[in-house]
């Protein structure tokens, strides 16, 4: 059991780390433009190149391209009923859901307020989902590249359009093809058909139709493998099917699960080392890499320990009746006492851990491992139901989203890490009474302000809407589980939106469905709009502000390395960074953690009923 539990997570960490070294070298080589493109590719590059750009022009191009992408995505979804590959006449999604989905895919979030298998045609899956998956991931990577070039004090940041081309054509498309092919061999469909209808082996078990005949099973298929590979490689996470990487067609075997998890780790791991290679500070990037690896290992161990190695507490016995004193403004003495009866254990063998919402074929710890990984690298694909994780285990994915810098999504995770790093160096500088420096450049008020703005957007965008929704019908009518877990559902949704993650506690009622849906979730429109806005702000402010910060910093004069300079490639520096992340993260999010998963864990189980 020990090996069965820990084999998969550590194999994944090791493989991704080993691949990161050569891959980061390749990526730095590409992004530095040292390759010689084939003549046909050179033609494309020449036509895309708009000349060298400064940081404002680069950011401007990035924003203009995103605007175009938004309009394109909106058109594709809004025109779904009239587009090809729609044999079962799927109609249009609700307008608010289209807004949410377009923002969601454009920002690399892939929070899905719809279910792909029910609501999208194959045309939309290809021209909306796949297009956005390639492009939004590339945009994040380009933002990081621009920051690196700004740090290098280059007079120009390169060209946004050429960078996009490089990422897409020399990195993502070949990688997606290889991974896609692996998924096909494992059983992911790759067809332009939409579904098979067939009579099952015991037809009566499927139930009967209104006319009294045995129901057929309708098996939805489509270009799953093509979507699946870029979904994972681009840390997008928006599934072809409603249940994402838990669905047997998206993730058919234990081996495909390994490649699912590995491919979402590949680029985020390599990006950190690419940062070091391009800045010629490889040791420095190794320190950052190690800090991230420590945090990631921690979240994995936490999730696996509490979910795979512990039973689901709802079935275990709690033989002693408990009483809880709860603070209350109206009760005499300021406290009301609530008591819960003793609970008998149910005769269920739980040696494989919490199996509610888990699939058998991936391996015992695969669900918990995946939940931690997917939030650390802000992918958002899931291979188990996060809503049904053991209460305290669910803290792990939440922490991954709150910190949002444990490798993180394409480029932006590393950018977030730079913010923590600037603030850490600033704090350390203050403590020893020296002007803080990073890469030999003095960090002054303007840089710290920009870093703080970019960093505070995230908690602001999580905590404010969570508070608002938890206090109103928007949240209360949407939650599907009672008590603290209901609060967790709201908190998780906004954490996921703000971290541009995309995973969810699926019980939350946020699906409106088609525009003419008979029974939409009552508060779906409020959720569509609120989550959409959160994703927008949390994506673009933390990209623009750091580019500006890097440009200001890069333009300064380098001061020579002296005795008093804080070494950025030492173990001490690693602990400084780790400490900064943990302390800032804890200060920001411990209170909500206590209200959500911690309260659920410590409170009565089962709750209410």
């Amino acid at each position, binding site marked *: 059991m020990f*090996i069965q539990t820990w084999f998969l997570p550590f194999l994944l960490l090791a493989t991704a780390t080993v691949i990161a070294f050569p891959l980061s070298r390749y990526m730095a080589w590409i992004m530095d433009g040292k390759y010689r493109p084939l003549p046909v590719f050179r033609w494309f590059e020449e036509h*895309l190149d*708009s000349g060298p750009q400064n940081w404002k*022009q680069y950011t*401007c*191009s990035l924003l*203009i391209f995103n605007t175009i992408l938004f309009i394109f995505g909106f058109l594709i979804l809004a025109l779904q009923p009239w587009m090809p590959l729609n044999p079962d006449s799927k109609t249009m999604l609700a307008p608010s859901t289209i807004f949410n989905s377009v923002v969601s895919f454009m920002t690399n979030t892939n929070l899905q307020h719809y279910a792909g*298998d029910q609501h999208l045609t194959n045309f939309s899956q290809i021209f909306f989902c*796949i297009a956005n998956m390639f492009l939004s991931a590339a945009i994040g990577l380009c933002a990081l590249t621009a920051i690196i070039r700004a740090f290098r004090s280059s007079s120009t940041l390169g060209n946004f*359009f050429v960078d*996009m081309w490089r990422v897409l*054509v020399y990195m993502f*498309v070949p990688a997606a*093809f290889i991974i896609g*092919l692996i998924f096909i061999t*494992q*059983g992911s*469909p*790759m*067809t*332009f058909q939409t579904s*098979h209808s*067939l009579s*099952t*082996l*015991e037809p009566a078990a499927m139930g009967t139709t209104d006319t009294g005949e045995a129901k057929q*099973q309708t098996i939805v*298929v489509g270009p799953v*493998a*093509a979507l699946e590979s870029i979904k994972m490689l681009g840390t997008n996470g928006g599934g072809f099917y*409603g*249940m994402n990487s*838990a*669905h*047997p067609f998206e993730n058919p*075997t234990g081996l495909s699960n390994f490649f699912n998890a590995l491919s979402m780790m590949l680029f985020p791991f390599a990006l950190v080392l690419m940062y070091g290679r391009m800045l010629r500070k490889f040791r420095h990037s190794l320190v950052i890499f190690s800090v991230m690896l420590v945090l990631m290992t921690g979240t994995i161990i936490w999730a696996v320990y509490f979910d795979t190695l512990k039973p689901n507490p*709802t079935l275990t016995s709690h033989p002693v009746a408990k009483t809880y004193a709860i603070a209350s403004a109206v009760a005499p003495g300021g406290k009301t006492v609530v008591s819960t*009866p003793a609970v*008998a254990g149910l005769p269920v*063998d739980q040696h*494989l851990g*919490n199996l*509610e*919402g888990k*699939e*058998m074929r*991936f*391996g015992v710890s*695969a669900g918990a491992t995946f939940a931690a990984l997917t939030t650390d690298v802000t992918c958002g694909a899931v291979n188990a*139901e996060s*809503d*049904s994780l053991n209460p305290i285990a669910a803290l792990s994915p939440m922490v991954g989203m709150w910190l949002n810098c444990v490798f993180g999504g394409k480029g932006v995770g590393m950018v977030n890490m730079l913010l923590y790093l600037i603030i850490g160096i600033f704090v350390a500088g203050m403590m020893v009474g020296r002007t803080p420096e990073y890469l030999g450049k003095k960090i002054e008020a303007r840089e710290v302000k920009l870093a703080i703005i970019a960093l505070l957007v995230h908690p602001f965008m999580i905590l404010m809407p969570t508070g608002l929704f938890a206090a109103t019908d928007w949240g209360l009518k949407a939650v*599907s*589980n009672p*008590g603290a877990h209901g609060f967790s559902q709201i908190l998780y949704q906004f954490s996921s939106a703000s971290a541009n993650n995309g995973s969810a506690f*699926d*019980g939350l009622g946020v699906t409106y469905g088609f525009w003419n849906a008979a029974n939409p979730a009552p508060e779906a429109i409020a959720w569509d709009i609120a989550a959409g806005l959160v994703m927008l702000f949390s994506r673009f402010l933390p990209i623009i502000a750091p580019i500006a910060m890097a440009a200001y910093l890069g333009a300064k004069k380098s001061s020579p390395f002296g005795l008093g300079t804080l070494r950025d490639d030492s173990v001490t520096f690693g602990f400084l960074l780790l400490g900064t992340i943990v302390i800032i993260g804890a200060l920001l999010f411990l209170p909500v953690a206590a209200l959500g998963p911690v309260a659920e864990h410590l409170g009565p189980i*089962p*709750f209410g*009923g």
Partner: protein
Amino acid sequence: MSRYLSKSLLLLLFSVVICCVLYPLVLWVTGQTLFNFQANGSILLGPDGKPVGSRLIAQPFTKDEYFQPRPSAASYDASASASSSLAASNYALRDRVARSLGPIIKYRSGPKTGQPVSPDIESWFKKDMYQGSPHIVAQWADQHNSLAQAWVTSDPTHAAYVDDWAKARPDLVKKWIKENPGTPQPKAADLAVVFFKNFSEKNPGKFLSAVTHKGADGKDQATLQPVNEGSDIQSTFCLMWREEHPDVDLENVPGDMVMSSASGLDPHITFQNAEYQLDRVASKWATNLKRNPDDVRKEIGQILRDNASAPWGGLAGEKFVNVLEVNLALRKRYGAP
């Protein structure tokens, strides 16, 4: 600025052509030519040569002759995958698991070792006492309003039964409206608790269940009737029985047998789960085929072993079997059940 706009459009055009046309097409051609079976959904053919399901998608089995898949929150609908989304702290999860346990659990020790618990749940239910007070059904509805309401809404005949009752007892309905002034026109589900309280007083030791009988036209029809035994009682009240008998030693049921999967379409069960079902499956086939139960058990056990596999060859997890493949093998070997 307009220059960036035109470059943006050009970039979008290039990337759509490459990522949305060329890339899927190349993958499609490769998949369809080299891995035709997988690329089309891994469809298996039945004994009559017709498609019978996908080896990757669970389908329901209810007959005792077949191995049964994990519970599905999606009702095995492969066009709308879904998980239960029930939190560990949600009472509904505990209740759902207990319901599936009721009809199958057995004693592990004591004089009744190996015997099913369900007859004892029924006889306990007939006595109609729970934790020192009478009327189990009334207490069930009172303590778990949502379960009582779920019973009413789960089936149109249930709601109709409560509606008929409401017409017959306007006094109780009036009293309920007085206590709940916010709902002047209660629906059947709103009245669930008061309905069950009244029902329980009038029918001590009984619960409502669909009973099939010959109708006036000679056809089978099902109506709701007060009963004091049957699978509805075994499942619905298993949890309350257990709360009163917390120390009785019961045989553990494999976890994946009662815990629903993430997609609702998990095609596998653990080997442990298959072995747990083996007795039932083997004895049923042995009766059908009039053969020695031990021989049939050995044969089916061999089928299970032949179909077993494990994630990463056992390094990452325990053995499991594919339910549809095993059941297809049974069907091919022994004929239709």
